[in-house]
């Protein structure tokens, strides 16, 4: 039907059974029917199979093959029925522009502006007061919606449980001694009493030697030369990018790598970020060893650990 043809009006004669629009798409409808029938039988068998697989249990592969196979076959069968055996037309329907007439549009605007104007423009005071009240309601309702959720951050983002003389312990609470790690070894440690804490996690590294007979190599940034002890250095394990644990220590290159977004920190020069998105060095924890040979912190961190935030100076 062309663009300017008149719209259909009045009753249509019934279509004859041999109308070409009603004929199957398949050249050989019997064959198409046979294929669809076989597919549907396979589907039926598949679902019975799923029942058996479920009853036997413990085999997701068989469950998938039977259920998926059943769905696939039955779906194929009914699709083939629809596509090859049902009328394909082409049929058409008219598309009407659904916008209203100009008069209806005008009436709509008038209903809003004139009826609304009649009451609102005369009673500006009431309109204003209602707006004021509902705005206040909207704002105060945000309090329980948002403020009730949790505490203010306060100083928690700046704090860790590392204090002066905190004892370094492993995840299972065992104190860390100066001879615990071989050269090149790493260990995740916590302050005693706070094992497993996200904010307090520290990576303890015993730095490598250049050769088997050389003294342990420690290059500290200026001002922190006494922050390590016997080749041990300790850094916050929270990446300064997004807080992932910086868990990959590459001994050969003396780098700590964050597996999340591949920030690379140079262990030998105070864990400054060498590459990747991390903006700041990992904060260093100053270490000391007590007379019994246990590792302890000289002090807490001198800055907030982890990723950046607005209140961080």
């Amino acid at each position, binding site marked *: 039907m062309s663009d300017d043809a008149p719209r259909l009006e009045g009753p249509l*004669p019934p279509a004859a059974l041999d109308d070409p629009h009603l004929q199957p798409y398949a050249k050989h409808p019997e064959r198409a029917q046979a294929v669809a029938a076989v597919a549907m039988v396979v589907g039926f068998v598949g679902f019975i199979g799923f029942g058996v697989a479920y009853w036997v249990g413990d085999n997701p592969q068989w469950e998938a093959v039977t259920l998926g196979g059943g769905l696939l076959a039955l*779906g194929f069968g009914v699709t083939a029925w629809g*596509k090859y055996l049902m009328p394909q037309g*082409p049929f058409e*329907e008219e598309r009407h522009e659904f916008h209203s007439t100009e008069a209806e549009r005008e009436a709509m605007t008038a209903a809003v502006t004139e009826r609304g104007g009649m009451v609102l423009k005369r009673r500006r005071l009431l309109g204003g007061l209602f707006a004021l009240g509902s705005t206040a309601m909207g704002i105060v309702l945000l309090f329980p919606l948002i403020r009730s959720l949790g505490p203010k951050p306060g100083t928690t983002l700046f704090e860790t449980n590392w204090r002066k003389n905190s004892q370094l312990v492993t995840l299972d609470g065992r104190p860390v001694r100066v001879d615990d790690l071989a050269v090149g070894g790493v260990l995740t440690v916590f302050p005693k009493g706070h094992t497993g804490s996200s904010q307090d996690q520290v990576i303890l590294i015993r730095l490598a030697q250049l050769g088997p007979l050389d003294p342990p190599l420690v290059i500290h940034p200026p001002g922190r030369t006494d922050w390590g002890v016997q080749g041990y250095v300790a850094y916050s394990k929270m990446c300064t990018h997004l807080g992932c644990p910086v868990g990959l220590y590459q001994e050969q290159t003396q780098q700590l790598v964050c597996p999340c977004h*591949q920030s690379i920190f140079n262990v030998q020069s105070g864990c400054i970020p060498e590459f990747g998105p991390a903006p700041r060095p990992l904060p260093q924890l100053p270490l000391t060893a007590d007379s019994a040979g246990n590792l302890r912190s000289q002090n807490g961190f001198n800055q907030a650990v982890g*990723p950046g935030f607005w209140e961080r100076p």
Partner: protein
Amino acid sequence: MIDETIDRSLRWLDDRLGIAKGGRTFLDKIFPDHWSFMLGEIALYSFVVLLATGVFLSLYYIPSAHEVVYHGSYVPLRGQRVSEAYSSSVSLSFDVKSGLLMRQAHHWAADIFLGSIAVHMARVFFTGAFRKPREFNWIVGVSMLILGIVNGFLGYSLPDDLVSGTGIRIAYSIIESIPLVGSYLGTFLFGGNYPGNGVIIPRFYILHVLIVPLLLIGLLAAHLGLLVKQKHTQFKGKGKTEHNVVGTPMFPTFIAKTTGFLFMTSAVIFLLGGLAQINPIWQFGQYEPYQISYAVQPDWYMGWLDGALRIMPSWEWVGWGHTIPLEVFLPAVIFPGLIFNIFIVWPFIESRHTKDLAYHNLLDRPRDRPLRTAAGVAMLTLLFMVFFASSTDVLANFFQVPLVGVLWFFRIAVIVAPVIAAVVAYKICNEMRAAEGIGKRKRPQIVTRSSTGEYSTTEAEPRPGDGVDELDAIPVPTYIDLVPPELATGAGVRRVMR
């Protein structure tokens, strides 16, 4: 007999609901035949599977960070103290019959849901189906894409395994990066500084199973309702105009085909769910904030955000006693916000540019709109580049090249590649438009060699779609003479007028 029963029931319903007129029109609704119209159906049907498998999972999953001792049938975990969320996720995989199939099917369905939305959206974009009067439906669709991504993230975070827990940690830090309010939003949402006081799993749960799905269902109803009201678009072709729709009717042809398609989409999801392992949480172990795994990638639809975070330079802004972590805020908040806003306003940008205020029910061929196609190709290239950038570590390992080199490649490629791709796409479109007869199916020529060695050429029989012998479209007939014409004698033939 059955016909009389149907007639009686429909009359009973029509007396009360007045369904006859609208119902008939609905059964006559015409669906254009084109494979690309099935992409949205894949999204719809994978959503159906998501709801069904999700209801199953919700009967067994326990949204709680409370610590329990695992006693299930997965031996390596027995006796360990884990969260109830993790324990119940492992248990519903191994100790609930068909549980693993349902859990993996749910995960696959989510990946397919978002994949089909993305491809469907590309189809709608490149063919110009978003133009007047369908701008609303485009926006509804983009909103569903955003909600789908959000719900995917919430969902894969629920098992409390090592990989997803790392994702939650990253999400917290992203919230924290928002200037002024970030720290507050973070501690509000998590009930304290990370990892909070254990409320995040129940909160994610209620968002994942109730609030976001409710929004999605509402938007889906609007999407389909608008589709029926505004009717389908269609490609240009014989007898197809701006004022009609040509195709097959809802009942019975489309119903049969689409039911089959629902079954086949579910089939693929369940086959994947049982045969292709996805998210083996028992191998990752429970999340601990101090543990991490190598080569951790999020689900594919989060990849573009992860990639953007990876290739961003470390530009933290510090001044006046404050910090703005631009290296996080720009790629993880501003970048996706910008992309989604471009999506939403595109129909209005385009109509302002073309000054085209007409209704458009016939679809464009992408090559006929070189500028739009080039813009779309540039956007896709950008998104693919940041997507691939989310596997810098894997690529560096696989190709045995330095990680730093891979990263620099992507930093340059996200800027250069979209420009090159857009220029190439623009040129190709114009070349194709200039070439005559392109895109039309060529009738094969059959060359025959006779027994005497002579060659002759004949044209092959026309195939459907060749435009030969194609019937004119007619309105869907309501009444059909069920007596075969050779038996029709005039008397006894039903002649009821429409």
